[in-house]
């Protein structure tokens, strides 16, 4: 059953990539939403009632920064689809992604 070996070999790589991008990016996105809400002063509803809105610019900036990371991740995904369609592949050998011909 050589196929089982190949499949398991591929499976854990897919799992790692899936966890990093498929769970990681939405988690960053959720953190971004939380930061935005915190930045607008609406993050906490406590037993003493809703705290009045005090703006926290840091939260807003952090929120948008996190969104930017997510968008870059999505753009990388798109680049990957388009590039592999035209015979290129994304190469992460230099840490930053480069396009190389297959």
């Amino acid at each position, binding site marked *: 059953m050589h196929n089982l070996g190949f499949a398991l070999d591929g499976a854990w790589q897919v799992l790692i*990539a*899936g966890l*990093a991008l498929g769970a990681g990016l939405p988690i960053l996105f*959720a953190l971004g939403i939380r930061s935005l809400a915190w930045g607008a002063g609406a993050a906490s509803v406590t037993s003493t009632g809703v705290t009045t809105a005090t703006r926290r610019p840091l939260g807003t900036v952090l929120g948008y920064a996190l969104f930017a990371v997510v968008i870059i991740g999505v753009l990388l995904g798109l680049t990957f689809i388009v590039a592999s369609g*035209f015979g290129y592949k994304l190469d992460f050998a230099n840490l930053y992604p480069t396009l190389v011909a297959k």
Partner: protein
Amino acid sequence: MILALVVITALAFDFTNGFHDTANAMATSIATKALRPKTAVALSGVLNLVGAFLSVEVALTVTNAVVKIQDKSGAPKAELLADGGSTLLLIILAGLVGGIVWNLLTWLLGLPSSSSHALFGGLVGATLAGLGVAGVNWNGDGSKLDGVVGKVLLPAVISPVIAGAVAALGTWVIFKITTGVAARFTENGFRWGQIGSASLVSLAHGTNDAQKTMGVITLALIASGHWSDLENIPLWVKVSAAVAIAAGTYLGGWRIIRTLGKGITDINPPQGTAAQSGAAAVILASSHLGFALSTTHVATGSVIGSGLGRPGAKVRWAVAGRMALAWLITLPSAALVGAVMFWVGDTVGGTAGALVVFTLLCLASIAMYLRSRTGKVDHENVNDDWDGAESAPADAAKLPAAAV
């Protein structure tokens, strides 16, 4: 003449592939009302169309994964061309019919099953009938993940589990992070999260699945001597396959959308975001690594995962179990139809045989379409509550299988 029937049938398969798989990308966005149903299918259709044109890679060797009717370069095996390619064309035709019939039947039952497995199943069956056991690529040659086992069976078991794990973890953490955050931030934010991730899935679907039809049509053209270039696909094949899959997607397989979006678990926007992102990441990562899988299995696995990951959410295991059963029998059932179709076509013989097969396909399709008119599911009632509602797919499931 036979060639024309093969081309029409291949495009018909592409069309059913489209509407069968709309759900994979859009079911969660429709269920959470992130997008209106019509907007969702239109967006998905356009992205499938774009996706189909994005790839210039030649998917000519698509059948090599499961059957041995082509050599490595994509040219049909020489011994199959001895009779002018008519056996080869009949195998392709019968295989496509097997795929279409199974796609339509599972649609009628509202079950998301894999279109690629249906196509592969049909081809395996037709090849078994036409060339015998040796014509099927069961286990590959040992050098890479290949054959019925490596390209179909193992990924079908593994990929939903991976996608489910990713989506479950994503959902769980997202709920931990966003508990207590005002709804006006989460609602709008995750709405866009869903639309973005669903769009990625649609695009990836267009690039992967339209290719299969293009490969099959081009193979038929080569077998009948109407095309000889192994490096390129005729433009009209590309355009027609892209349009067929986009039109199918736009039509929307509402029954399947309903099962996936409402039937398995009740989804809210953060779950939808986690599920679609998980699906998109798993699909892209696997195609990057050459790990063949079905969009359907991934999307379903991730929806179940998002139900498991959200505290307090329930997964309807009866629905999930019925789908798993459908996955198990997809390959053998489509193979059976493919084999019977080849046998019928071969017995009648020649052009008449192909015509008979095509007529049988039309009759079966019409029968299933008429059956679907009772207990209709469309964009109006796709989001009705699953429990308690007169659910058409559930009723249909109790009926004996429609005549094939």
